[in-house]
């Protein structure tokens, strides 16, 4: 589903190279965990996948279902099924969460040539999704992310993911700022979405999240490259011994 080939990318403003020859393949149905120390390029990778303009790809390619997505803007990538759950979701003052959901869902439907959702159907879907994440409907009347707690923001991200039904879900440190209960709710939400035709890229610092969302593969990112890949035992190994050992082997 996702194939990243020898990817090099830099920050447009100052030319700093962040991604330096990254290779990664994720199959449909797979949950791939990306781990690595601070500054290794994890969040940058998620931004580049979603099409953020602050980064420039200088070499290599990103194939999604066999097609390069480098020329697509963020909205086109989103409607083609790529979803990014942000580490720091943005506040959109004056735009009710409910309204935002409706605009986003209908925009994606339009891109697929479908009719806009009828209001009762839309409400039904939102209610179900919100209930499964233990979210209060009253919260959805508030402007998106404005005054939401850290946990509420992360839940709102997963709610959007559920409703937009993407094919490739990128979760950027979704566990940060969550207490144990919220972590469980969010993880359950993600697990419920696992399916043979959907892939996940789960970016995290900690093994903790991977106890709830059990990955099929684990990849260690360091200085903009995948330096080691393995199964879920690799995450346990990192938790016990830190990154030093893996980095040492690679160097």
């Amino acid at each position, binding site marked *: 589903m996702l194939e990243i080939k020898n990817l090099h990318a830099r920050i447009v403003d100052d030319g700093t190279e962040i991604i330096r020859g990254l290779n990664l393949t994720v199959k449909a149905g797979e949950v791939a965990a990306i781990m690595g120390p601070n500054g290794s390029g994890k969040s940058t990778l998620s931004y580049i996948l*979603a*099409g*953020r*303009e*602050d980064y420039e790809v200088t070499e290599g390619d990103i194939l999604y279902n066999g097609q390069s997505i480098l020329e697509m*803007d*963020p*909205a086109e*990538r*989103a*409607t083609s099924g790529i*979803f*990014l759950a*942000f580490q720091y*979701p*943005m*506040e*959109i*003052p*004056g*735009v*009710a969460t409910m*309204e*935002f959901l409706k*605009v*986003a869902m*209908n*925009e*994606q439907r339009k*891109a697929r040539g479908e009719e806009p959702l009828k209001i009762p159907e839309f409400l039904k879907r939102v209610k179900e999704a919100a209930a499964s994440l233990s979210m209060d409907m009253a919260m959805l009347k508030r*402007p998106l992310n404005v005054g939401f707690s850290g946990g509420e923001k992360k839940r709102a991200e997963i709610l*959007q993911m559920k409703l*937009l039904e993407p094919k490739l879900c990128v979760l950027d440190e979704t566990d940060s700022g969550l207490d144990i209960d919220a972590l469980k709710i969010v993880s359950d939400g993600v697990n419920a979405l696992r399916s043979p035709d959907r892939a996940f890229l789960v970016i995290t610092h900690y093994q903790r999240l991977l106890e709830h969302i059990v990955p099929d593969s684990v990849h260690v990112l360091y200085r903009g490259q995948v330096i080691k890949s393995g199964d879920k035992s690799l995450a346990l190994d990192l938790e016990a011994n830190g990154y030093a050992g893996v980095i040492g082997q690679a160097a």
Partner: protein
Amino acid sequence: MPAVQDTIDRVRKIDVDQYKYGFQTEIAVDKAPKGLSEDIIRFISAKKDEPSWMLEWRLEAYRRWLTLEEPTWARVNYPKIDFQDIYYYAAPKSTPGPTSLSDVDPEILKVYEKLGIPLKEQEILAGVQKTDASELEEVSDNVYKSGRVAVDAVFDSVSVVTTFKKELAQAGVIFCSISEAIREHPELVKKYLGSVVPTSDNFYATLNSAVFTDGSFVFVPKGVRCPMELSTYFRMNEKNTGQFERTLIIAEEGAYVSYLEGCTAPQRDENQLHAAVVELVALDDAEIKYSTVQNWYPGDAEGKGGIYNFVTKRGDCRGHRSKISWTQVETGSAITWKYPSCILRGDDSSGEFYSIAVSNGYQQVDSGTKMIHLGKNTSSRIISKGIAAGFSQNTYRGQVSAHRKATNARNFTNCDSLLIGDQCGAHTVPYMEAKNSTAQFEHEATTSKISEDQKFYVMQRGIPEEEAIALIVNGFVKDVIQQLPMEFAVEAQKLIGISLEGSVG
């Protein structure tokens, strides 16, 4: 925000810098000779069949105007206006004054139809005209069908028609053109005209007092709640012609009225002048809600042409517990110079100013309000949202003052500016003056840019760039949009989207 999709659809349909209302209509006109003199003023007064006191009032204003200098304190730049190079009176030949709908030139009716202003439909709803099935179908497509709106249509220098007059009269409400009011209700006009904005007030107000041509007159008697929204649509059509609107609204004790004005003009290379004066008077316990959707031609993408909108609007909360509320959505004009203000004279009176000013291209906006607290326990509230894009300059200029006797005066001011792109400017110039130690003034101001982070986030959900910006902007102005009458809130949102067309990338 149901308007977001509409906004985008409309924006897509329009080429860059194509102003939707820029058409001109060929209509035979009756014009005064170009230029300004006492003779021209006599000509205007005679055309309107005015009593002699009105002519004297005009001439006095004119003589004073000759001694005044054009103000230069606003943050706007434009070449000096040649006041002798303007026509001061232009009226469609066929309709020298307000008439019944059947007498109005069909060409003019077409203009209003094109602008989406339902003169005919409204009359059908009012039962004035006999209806048949086909006309009713027309009605059902109308956006205004939910609420009834009486309309006064001002075309260049004259009011061509006022709808719903009979029904309003039954409630005791007078709604007509100011020209008609001068003839039919001279005692009311004499009592109130110039009582809020004196003829000597400022350069443009004085000019207006000398040459004003038409506008609306509203009188809501004691204890009456006006049964429908009132509105006036100003259309400038004739080339090189200034429009000098004069509007006077009076709400007697305990009365209530909500009024809306809309404005459009053809697209031209020359600049045109619109210098209006609006006066509101609210007596004890009365409330006036005045909304403006201003969409004069803003000029082209290079800044050529457009309307100079130099306007004096002021409301007098003359009675105790009276309330005046100004809401404005300003998207048009090459230059806007406008400060709808409230004199809080009565004890416990309150004034409000809600404003959205959008500037794009080379537009210059210098707008704001004055809240003058004179009475005890008076309160005022100012919410201003400026949105600047392109190469435009957008200034909020406001004054809040509390006089010695204004104990417990309270004001809350919030000015937010949003910048789109990096070639435009937003400026906030607040003046505050409290001569009374019990006054409480609060002021908040922010300037922000639509951040790349916000835009990226919204687009990541599948929302294309222009719609993402419209969504963020509509969120930004939401507190003000909510103040508009329902029927116009959606229109206003669309207008904001259209005004920001081409501001992306």
